[in-house]
């Protein structure tokens, strides 16, 4: 699994002008693929958020005599899992943790990585070296290995997987932020602002951030898919959420022993991970081309 293999700085540094985001939004809504993805993701999110109010069976309530029931069982449209718990309810409730541990690390890394990258890129020199060289060290690990090593060190748990994935995603985001900032810093309008006596903080906040956030945001959205897969993967290895919490990766893990009894049931949680992952990927692609003013 790779992070940042495609050149991102090619996204032209957008000229800050009124209506830019409006245009992007308009172009995005005209893209049917993006809209379908957004709809699907919206549905999954809403279902996860309102899961307790949907009148679903208790996702923790098992029944020993109703284990591994097939699809279409009365009262259990998607069957039951290895402890006789309702699959549909667990899949929907599972979205709460899966989405949280998939998205939160990217969000955290977006904030921390952008800050680090902008500070490094704007100041250059000593600060740049200190930040970027440290980041290089973490960048020297393959992402999956790093996530697993950190999670393995911290131990299983939701918080620990969020921390470990955040650490994994900070370096690539910081790198993008740094290179975009460096290129923006040398542009004319920043020099002009500096000449007109604006302070470093103001310049950074208004001019640099305004021009840097867009590309990084697009990049971050493309990471969500990777993060979802990795987060569920950690749980799949037993390094993420713990039983009996419903979470897609962990469900895949515990259902694996059932592939000889009810194989397709065992594959179900993966469909959810796949759906969310591909949804975010396509949406991110759509956003990128909508923001690409050359088109």
């Amino acid at each position: 699994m790779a992070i940042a293999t495609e050149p991102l700085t090619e996204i032209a540094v957008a000229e800050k002008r009124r209506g830019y985001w409006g245009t992007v939004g308009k172009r995005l809504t005209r893209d049917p693929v993006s809209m379908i993805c957004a709809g699907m993701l919206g549905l999954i999110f809403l279902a996860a958020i309102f899961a307790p109010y949907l009148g679903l069976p208790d996702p923790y309530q098992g029944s020993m005599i109703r284990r591994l029931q097939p699809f279409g069982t009365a009262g259990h449209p998607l069957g039951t899992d290895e402890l006789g718990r309702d699959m549909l309810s667990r899949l929907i409730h599972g979205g709460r943790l899966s989405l949280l541990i998939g998205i939160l690390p990217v969000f955290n890394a977006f904030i921390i990585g952008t800050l680090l990258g902008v500070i490094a890129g704007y100041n250059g020199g000593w600060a740049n070296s200190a930040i970027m060289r440290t980041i290089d060290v973490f960048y020297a690990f393959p992402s999956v290995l790093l996530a697993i090593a950190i999670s393995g060190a911290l131990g299983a748990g939701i918080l620990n997987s969020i921390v470990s994935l955040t650490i994994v995603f900070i370096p690539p985001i910081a790198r993008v932020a740094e290179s975009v900032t460096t290129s923006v810093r040398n542009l004319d309008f920043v020099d002009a602002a500096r000449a007109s006596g604006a302070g470093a903080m103001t310049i950074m906040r208004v001019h640099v951030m305004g021009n840097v956030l867009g590309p990084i945001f697009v990049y971050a959205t493309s990471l969500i898919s990777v993060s979802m897969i990795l987060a569920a993967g950690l749980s799949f290895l037993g390094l993420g959420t713990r039983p009996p919490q419903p979470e897609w990766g962990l469900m895949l893990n515990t259902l694996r022993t059932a592939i000889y009894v009810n194989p397709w049931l065992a594959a179900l949680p993966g469909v959810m991970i796949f759906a969310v992952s591909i949804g975010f990927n396509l949406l991110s692609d759509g956003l990128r081309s909508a923001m690409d003013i050359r088109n």
Partner: protein
Amino acid sequence: MLVYLAKRLAYTVPIVFSVALVCFMLVHLSPGDPLISILPADASVELEQRLRIQYGFDRPLPVQFWIWISNALSGDLGASIANGRPVLSEVLQAVRNTLLLACTAAVLGFALGMFFGLVAGYFRDSWIDKLATSIAIAGVSVPHYWLGMVLVIIFSVQLNWLPAVGAGPGNWSWTWTHLQYLVLPAVTMAVIPMGIITRTVRALVGDILSNDFVDALRAKGLGEGRVFLHVIKNAAPTAIAVMGLQLGYLLGGSILIETVFSWPGTGFLLNTAIFQRDLPLLQGTILVLALFFVFLNLFVDMLQAMIDPRIKRG
């Protein structure tokens, strides 16, 4: 050019050292007792203390790091706590199996990715392009451990065509007896690089085709076949570089696939080491994999620098 190479090489030294430091810190700052794998919970406190001293876990961390790193420089990564065997030989044995899997997957992913990417880029916006792009996006979005499970369900459980798990009996050989074990994990593993290469190559082909010289070639009356060949020649170096990096990700990320298929590689080793808290084995495995990745990066950079003399980064 030479200056760039020298700089790039020199820069690798502190990186390698820092990577070793991070490995060590990760493994040692974590909670949990490193003696757990050899000491039953009912062992006496006195016995535990005795072993802690004998294994050197009572010493300050900087001292432990110094001992570890200086031994590592002479090729000695210590011995596994759980089984007493030298870590280096354990890791190299596992690396061999993982390399076998990762290289097969890389070749497969590269071949498919090149094919789909070229076709998609060449016939941009046609239905072929749409199909290839869809396959690519599915490839980069699929949770590969799940795909592995699905393939096992179809080809092992239901059709009974291929073995579900393991690397086959006895020592590896290039015969169907063993190759059949490689098929499912290698295909599963190839999916992500396939997607990434397809997308990269498609973009490259688009760029190349929009260049003036292509029009010039066509104007010169070159057949489309020759033009296509030209496109391949121009796209290949970048695709190879991307694939080189992908190989590194495959090696480091093989743990999920190796778990699904019980493949006896580094991921399997990592898993055992994590859950047994076998610190020497854990830090040794992570270090070897990370260093492999660092040197692969270095190699790819140098290769690119040699192929493309315009690069003057530093």
